[in-house]
């Protein structure tokens, strides 16, 4: 049987992580192609619905990328994202869902290498965890 290839949905902020992902490409960084990027203006614009919808529909992981603390283009969006993600993860933990499938990372526009490394590491971790059980749960 072919090796399990996790599917990651990534919500990346325009000013830092999306540009960082761009840099990863232009500088020819290698990273696994398991990621589907959704481009948003700010990590603070990531509604918990987006994350949950992705997970319930069977995404194996969700990556949220934003600017480093203090660097948000809109001043505070990343801090708000951080609280929102913390709340969401705590809810999922309480319900017995592995919250490790949600990653929030600060990756700046100049950190193309960090972006590639993050995706590589996330794919490795998700491979260890195996497929998202929700993919098979028809009643979720």
């Amino acid at each position, binding site marked *: 049987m072919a090796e399990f290839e996790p599917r990651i949905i990534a919500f990346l902020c325009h000013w830092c992580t999306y540009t960082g992902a761009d840099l990863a490409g232009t500088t020819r960084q290698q990273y696994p192609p398991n990621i589907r990027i959704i481009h948003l203006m700010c990590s603070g614009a990531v509604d918990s619905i987006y994350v949950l919808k992705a997970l319930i529909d069977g995404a194996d992981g969700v990556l949220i990328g934003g600017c480093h603390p203090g660097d948000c283009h809109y001043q505070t969006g990343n801090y708000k994202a951080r609280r929102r993600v913390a709340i969401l993860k*705590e809810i999922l933990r309480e319900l017995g869902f592995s919250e490790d499938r949600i990653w929030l990372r600060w990756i700046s526009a100049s950190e193309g290498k960090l972006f590639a490394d993050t995706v590589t590491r996330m794919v490795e971790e998700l491979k260890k965890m195996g497929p998202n059980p929700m993919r098979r749960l028809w*009643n*979720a």
Partner: protein
Amino acid sequence: MAKQAVVKVSEGKTEEALQGLLRSLLEKKVVEALLVPKRLPSGQGVVQTLIRNPEKMEGLCLLSPTMPVQSARVASYLSVRNLSKPVALVLKACEIRAMVELSKFLQVKLDHLFLIGIDCPGTFEVNDYSRMVEEGKGDGVLFQELFKGMEQGEERAPEGYAFRKACEICEFPVTRADLWIQLYGYPTEREIGLEVGEKLGKEMEEKGLHLETSEGYPKREEILRKVIEKRRKKRDETFEEFRGKVKSLGSFLDLFSTCIRCHNCMVACPICYCKECVFRTAVFEHEGDQFLRWADRKGAIRMPTDTLIFHLIRMSHMVTSCIGCGLCESACPSRLPVAVLFRSVGDRIQKMFDYVPGRDVNEPPPVATFKEDELKLESGAI
């Protein structure tokens, strides 16, 4: 500074003494109107009533045995647009705490409101209470038992009945208000304690309504502590039992499998603060083919869809401010343990932000604020 006062009860008529106190607020024009629980003509229930005419005060029931709606919602309708006259509201601790939370979301304006709280022994389901009345165990009989029980901190439901689950695990029989009616620890056939806040106290003095000051009742603190301790214990047991039941996502889904997505929990919730709920917008009106694509991906999908995401999103919005009134569960036709779910998850998340909903009007809710230096982990990851 809040002042301690006392209301003397004559001939053991506790309820009448409380009614008299309220009547004087209206008659002396300390307030222009009262929102207070009142018995329905059928006698089978008690509802919040807005009273302007002191003549309409018969049948007041300050210690309402039920909570058909959360009065924080009522207070929201009443206060949020153009209320210019002072109104006093008689509420339970959970209702006051919900109002404090709603005021933070700009859905209650406290400017012209005086909050009157009363020690809460717990409430009953509306249907249970009506049955109780039919069986002759409700109304006067019930209140006499409750008053007597509260003196010792040992209030009990009539035989064959139980307080609402949320009430049994509520560690807030008391909270802060402009006027607090104290029953626990008091020999209520003789006297009732009052804690009068500065603002209302001054207003009452100015309007010539003088209360008898007192030293308070020595036993009260101890009895209140005992009651709170008992409920905390019950709360922790309930959490433990619930957490034991939802060890995995599968078991959670089983527990919630009878959800019919009626949104009753959302309507009953005093905290649910979105003016327009996303679950009632076109976002969740999917195209026919979309359902087929989902069904294709998983092989099959349950209908109606989006029940899990509904509960999770609702939770992510309100759980930090959940005051545990449990009306979500009372409103659930499938009797899902939503109240325990929200309290149990809320407990952890509220602790994470060192936040107690309803504690202080000036404390910003966790979802509306942040600290630069928090939730830090390696490389900014959480």
